[in-house]
């Protein structure tokens, strides 16, 4: 089959690789209908996440049609159109049974690579380095999906592939981030980042009853999409974000701040210059401008919900959290806990993930798609590939 392979820093090529096979009895093979870029892929492509290997097939956000099933698969069958969360979860362990699916105890095939870094291994994820399992990704004609009965969700008739696609990752990640905020009547939620996850977090906060949602970014087309979703846009290159947030909240500060940016944050001023230099010299892996700002902005006793992907950031101003009594919630997405609900929201038109699909490419054109996505050319929010 054809697949998009990582060959080194910023070296992506579409190559012919072996077709995936059923390896365990609960696996299925999916013919990929749509698969999309994610901001977190950029950390891999840029070489900021170790344990990538030449030839790794990228892609962890996808949907498709089941074409082969293992003998012990009972809930889904050949021909089903399904969406699959990016973290692989068994559904049987303590974490899965407590809706913490990305912490699955049994789906990581190489836990010895991750246990020294994190203390305990997480669940496995498609195409996110060998320290996260080494599973082949979805930017390919076919992908193997383990634990299909837990991880494959039927897409209802009438819901488009484009809407279903982002319920694999951007939508459940964003929804989880809003869910972490425990939104109460009258709450104001500020979201840093208007990429796919940030926009989905904004729509989710509205679904969960936020009084007002404020969206922070610098790209006009992304801020325009946030505004179209009903958020108040703030361009951090044009206003002092902290002052603007105080103004918009009567001096209280947002009740919760969601970081949907992560370790390659843009920013302004001295701190951003410092971060860029340190990252370029490999003295730090993370540029944390958005996170630092969110920590300062959040009201006393508020919630900081972290969705951005980070590695091992130094100079973390913990005192802001401690002295303000801030609750921090964070996780990789527990998608399996949210997908059924999100499919319903999408069917009712309350959640409109297809708006993220600004650019569509064939698999052969996927390196070009990543280039556009990385450099945000032509207002590219997400590049979608149809193998």
């Amino acid at each position, binding site marked *: 089959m054809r*697949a998009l392979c990582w060959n*080194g*820093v910023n070296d992506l090529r579409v190559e012919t*690789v*072996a*077709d*995936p*096979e059923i*390896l*365990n*009895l*609960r696996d299925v093979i999916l013919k990929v209908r749509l698969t999309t870029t994610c901001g977190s892929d950029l950390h891999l492509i840029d*070489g900021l996440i*170790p*344990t*990538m*290997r*030449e*030839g*790794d*097939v990228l892609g962890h956000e996808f949907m498709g049609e089941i074409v082969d099933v293992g003998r*012990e698969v009972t809930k889904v069958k050949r021909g089903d159109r399904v969406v699959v969360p990016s973290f*692989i979860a*068994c559904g*049987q*362990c*303590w974490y899965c*049974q407590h809706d913490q699916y990305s912490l699955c*105890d*049994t*789906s*990581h*095939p*190489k*836990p*010895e690579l991750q*246990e020294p870094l994190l203390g305990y*291994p997480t669940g*496995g994820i498609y*195409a996110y380095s*060998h320290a996260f*399992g*080494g*599973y*082949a*990704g979805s930017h390919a004609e076919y992908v*193997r999906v*383990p*634990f299909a009965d837990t991880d494959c969700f039927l897409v209802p008739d009438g819901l488009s592939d484009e809407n279903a696609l982002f319920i694999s990752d951007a939508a459940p990640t964003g929804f989880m981030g809003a869910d972490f905020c425990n939104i109460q009547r009258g709450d104001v939620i500020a979201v840093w980042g208007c990429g796919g996850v940030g926009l989905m977090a904004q729509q989710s906060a509205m679904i969960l009853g936020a009084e007002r949602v404020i969206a922070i970014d610098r790209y006009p087309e992304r801020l325009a999409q946030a505004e179209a979703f009903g958020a108040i846009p703030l361009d951090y290159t044009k206003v002092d974000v902290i002052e603007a947030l105080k103004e918009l909240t009567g001096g209280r500060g947002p009740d919760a701040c969601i970081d949907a940016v992560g370790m390659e944050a843009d920013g302004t001023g001295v701190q951003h210059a410092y971060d860029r230099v340190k990252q370029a010299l490999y003295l730090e892996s993370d540029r944390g401008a958005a996170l630092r700002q969110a920590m300062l902005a959040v009201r006393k006793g508020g919630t900081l919900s972290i969705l951005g992907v980070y590695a091992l950031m130094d100079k973390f101003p913990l005192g802001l959290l401690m002295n303000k009594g801030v609750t921090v919630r964070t996780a990789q997405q527990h998608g399996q806990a949210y997908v059924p609900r999100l499919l319903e929201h999408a069917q009712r038109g309350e959640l409109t993930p297809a708006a993220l699909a600004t650019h569509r490419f064939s698999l052969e054109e996927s390196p070009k798609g990543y280039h556009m996505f990385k450099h945000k050319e032509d207002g590219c929010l997400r590049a979608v590939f149809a193998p």
Partner: protein
Amino acid sequence: MNAVTHDSSLDADARAAVTIGRPADELRTLWLRPDTQSRIWSHFADVTPIDERTAEWVAHGPAGGEYRWRTELAAGGTNELRWSSSDGADVANAGVLVFQPAPGDRGTELHLDVRFDPPGGPLGQALSKLFHLVPREIVLKALYKFRALALTGEIPTTDPQPAARKGGTDR
């Protein structure tokens, strides 16, 4: 004994623990199933059961070396399993697996302790180098695989898989 095996940092005593949400008797039965041992130790050695209490182990060392030994299960209490290698082992070793009730509804704690005791001489040195890097990983990975098998009936794998070319390097 040579200098390497005298080094206390060798840490040939490898311990690890996992908690599995199943009762101890069920886990003990699964552990003793002949195919379980070959599946959970496959990253380290080929294990072939000879009978209910005895198994043949072949570990593959660096540069194509093969190291063989036989283990025998000892009589033990109901909350533990003990085994040790027979005389003439290339790598003398002894293991004990203790089953303890976990708090609340967490199931059973498994505490595994394997003592590797490589002999001296050139062979021992080679093994020491090999084990110097990995004894805890060997044991921990076996326990993680056992937990997956106990909870899901399968062991996660990507092998064979097309995610990376053979010989690809970490970047």
